[in-house]
């Protein structure tokens, strides 16, 4: 169960976006990849991670358009 409140989520989301902005577009992918790896190590539960990988990939074929 998540213990992250709505306002916590809000705050870390903004922090994340700002940090990625500073890292720059060229290294943005690398930043996301590193964050994903660190998150895997911290989550420490293989089943959860497998679920998250599936959820993250879900629907991407259809969200690949504009925006």
């Amino acid at each position, binding site marked *: 169960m*998540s213990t*992250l409140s*709505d306002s916590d*989520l*809000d705050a870390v*989301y*903004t922090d*994340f*976006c*700002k*940090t*990625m*902005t500073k*890292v720059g*577009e060229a290294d*943005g992918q690398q930043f996301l990849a590193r964050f994903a790896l660190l998150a895997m190590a911290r989550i420490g539960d293989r089943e959860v991670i497998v679920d998250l990988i599936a*959820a993250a990939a*879900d*629907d*991407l074929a259809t*969200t690949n*358009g*504009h*925006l």
Partner: protein
Amino acid sequence: MTPEFAPYPFTAKRYAAALPPLRNGIEEKHRPVVVVGGGPVGLTTALGLANHGVPVVLIEADDSVCTGSRAICISRRSLEIMERVGAVDGFKKIGLPWTGGRSYYRDAEVLHFKMPQDDNQKLPPMVNLAQYHIEQILLDRAEERADLIDIRWQTKVTAIDARDDGVRLTLSTPHCDYEITADWLVAADGGRSFVRESLGQQLQGTSYEGRYVIVDILLDSARPAERLAYFDPPCNPGSTVLVHKQPDNVWRIDYQLQEGEDPEAAIRPENVLPRVASLLEMMGETGAWKPIWITLYKANALTLERYRHGRVMFAGDAAHLVPIFGVRGANSGIDDADNVAWKLAYVTKGLASEKLLDSYSSERVAAAHENLSYGTKSTEFMAPPSFAFELMRKAVLSLAFKHPQIRALINPRQTSAITYADSPLNSASEHSAAFAVGPVPGAVLPECPLVILRDGKTHGGHLTDLLSPCFVLLHFTDGSGSPTAWAALERNMLATAIPLRIVTLAQSENCGGADYAAWDSTGRLFPMYGAVHGTVYLVRPDGHVLARWQQGNPGEIEAAIRRALHV
């Protein structure tokens, strides 16, 4: 072919310029307070001052209320303020109440949010009405207070001399120029404030690059009033669109300019109207429609560092510019007006030291920072300022349908009442800390229905009905004991000319013989305020809590009031 535009379904009254009696080009009468700007903030300030019996001259460059697309969403907190200045009826009559909204990503609904609303409330969380309505309602009310409010139409401030002991303004009218002198000036002259510039003050903060096209259209539709947000909609892929219903079949449509789009070209009807048409088609709106007004908007998150500069108080857009997302512009300005009005009134009447006015600045600057931080977050979502915000927003929107935990990030963070947690006026914090629930010092009063007994008559009402333009003491009781100690306090304060109204809040119909009382008919009031027999909440003239005691005594209450007023 030029497309046919419809006018706004509103005819503004025009007002003539008038001159006061002059002597050598100077207004004969010296004034305690002059307000510059007859927008929502200047008008509310004037009404607030009049509520305290303070005469005010209001200077307005124009000859009528505003036109065009500006504020449309007025919050519950603003309505509470309107109620206290006697203007809420117009808002209730004209405004469209609403309680929530929906956000869509492509064709799926990804968020249905609700603003706080339950059967304790007297007023809706939000009403929609055009800013010309807002101003006309306030103006009509101001005209009823013509004994105290003197409006100078078509009169422009062209120079200001601000000194330690007062101000001198040069005013330009179609007839002639003249000067006016006053003890205090409230600068509510809007985002391009002339007063701010003359005093060499600058707004600080962030200006955003992302631009929005704002379109008002005339469309007859039975669709209910709620906030609609469309991200990447099928009708206009890649764009973000907001839709709001206003009274009289006017609809507000805001959409984000695409990257690289030329702003000049983007607001030409031939580019705007097809987008509106495809949006309406997607929404299933088949009725005939006409454009009324098209304009461009760019978000700013800016504020002055201080709102008091000697004898000059800045309020509203003159003091801060808040992004439209979250609808905090006019609403926060109305809060400024409510705050500055009672403090200036107390100072001009000699009931408070002018130090009280420093708390106007500190409280409202803190509020602006809170408003700006929410407004900034909304803007970062509605108009992503970098590739990272854009990328993350797409992730949020595409995951929100299946993962409810993520939906909160789409919430538009609509304006809500602000607590002056760090106000220098707050008192008796150690007593407040003993409460587990209820409004803390600096907070506004949570609403609750109750039955009011006054002068032998009873009627259903709400807690905020008990407020009036003075300090109010809410005294909770089980009906036992006598109100004499409190009556003595009331008399004491009256002797110092600081009016205090004591209202008994009883647990049952037995109000212990008080002549102004209310009883907790739903049984919800006492638990909501953490109150027991003997509990006291001391409330400021603007409805914010000053201090609270589980067991209050008259001496501490008098001291808290004197401390706040520095007397």
